[in-house]
């Protein structure tokens, strides 16, 4: 039985540390559901819809953190040739993509009852959508069917420019919108003052989503590291595996 458990231990991206982290993340997510959906009151203006923000706002924050990690990782890789940082950049870009999609979808769901439409050409929405496209561009380069060195080097250039691009896009979109209308739509939404249990629920949201982000990042990093090792060892091993599988079935 012990050998069985041991084997499981080796053949995965998990470790004792991530297991503890994972359990903590699960507990925090359960607490978030409890506070966000049950204990916290409905908002005076927004009603029940405010509960979407407990997952929406923290997701946006970790998405931005992921983007910064991508740019930092790409910069360190280009500067020091650090494989480790390159993998951090790749792993956090993929996770940032997941969270950016979540932000967009939950934001649209929040917008429907609040504004009456799923989408408005608001500065924040538009720049988040552009951020998703920029991330998809990075991932497309990183996953190119090309030589390892080619892939990582080119992706690092794209990743390095990710945050500057986001800043410029945000600035331009903000000017673009404010020329036509003041961004009043969000003023009675996120900006409204929150306190008591609602604030605490949002706080739980930050912790829970943050833990999930950390857990995902470690696992995704290890997966990327394994892929890297496999790349390095050449395709022969993988081909041999496939052959063995084919022969067995």
């Amino acid at each position, binding site marked *: 039985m012990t050998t069985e458990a041991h084997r499981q231990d080796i*053949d995965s*991206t998990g470790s004792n540390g*991530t297991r503890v982290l994972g359990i903590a993340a699960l507990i925090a997510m359960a607490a978030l559901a409890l506070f966000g959906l049950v204990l916290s009151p409905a908002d005076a203006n927004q009603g029940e819809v405010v509960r979407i923000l407990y997952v929406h706002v923290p997701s946006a924050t970790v998405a931005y953190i992921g983007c910064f990690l991508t740019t930092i990782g790409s910069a360190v890789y280009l500067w020091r040739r650090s494989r480790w940082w390159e993998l951090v950049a790749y792993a956090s870009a993929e996770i940032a993509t997941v969270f950016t999609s979540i932000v967009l979808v939950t934001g649209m*769901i929040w917008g429907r009852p609040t504004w009456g439409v799923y989408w408005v050409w608001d500065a924040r929405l538009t720049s988040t959508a552009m951020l998703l496209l920029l991330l998809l561009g990075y991932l497309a380069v990183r996953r190119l069917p090309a030589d390892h060195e080619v892939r990582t080097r080119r992706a690092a250039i794209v990743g390095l420019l990710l945050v500057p691009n986001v800043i410029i896009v945000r600035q331009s979109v903000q000017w673009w919108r404010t020329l036509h209308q003041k961004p009043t739509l969000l003023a009675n939404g996120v900006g409204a003052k929150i306190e008591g249990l609602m604030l605490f629920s949002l706080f739980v949201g930050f912790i829970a989503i943050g833990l*999930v982000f950390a857990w995902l990042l470690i696992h995704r990093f290890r997966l990327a590291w394994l892929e890297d090792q496999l790349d390095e060892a050449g395709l022969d091993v993988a081909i041999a595996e496939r052959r063995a599988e084919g022969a067995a079935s």
Partner: protein
Amino acid sequence: MSGNWGYVAAAWVIVFGSLAGYAARTIRRGRSISTQVPPERRRWS
């Protein structure tokens, strides 16, 4: 107001669902790929 619970439920299901799905996919791929890499090349565990 009761109608808005639908939006809340949809958003939360999407968040929990996509995170769980992504986590499961990452773990599954990690399991399948780590059998192909010799244990001494994995620095954790």
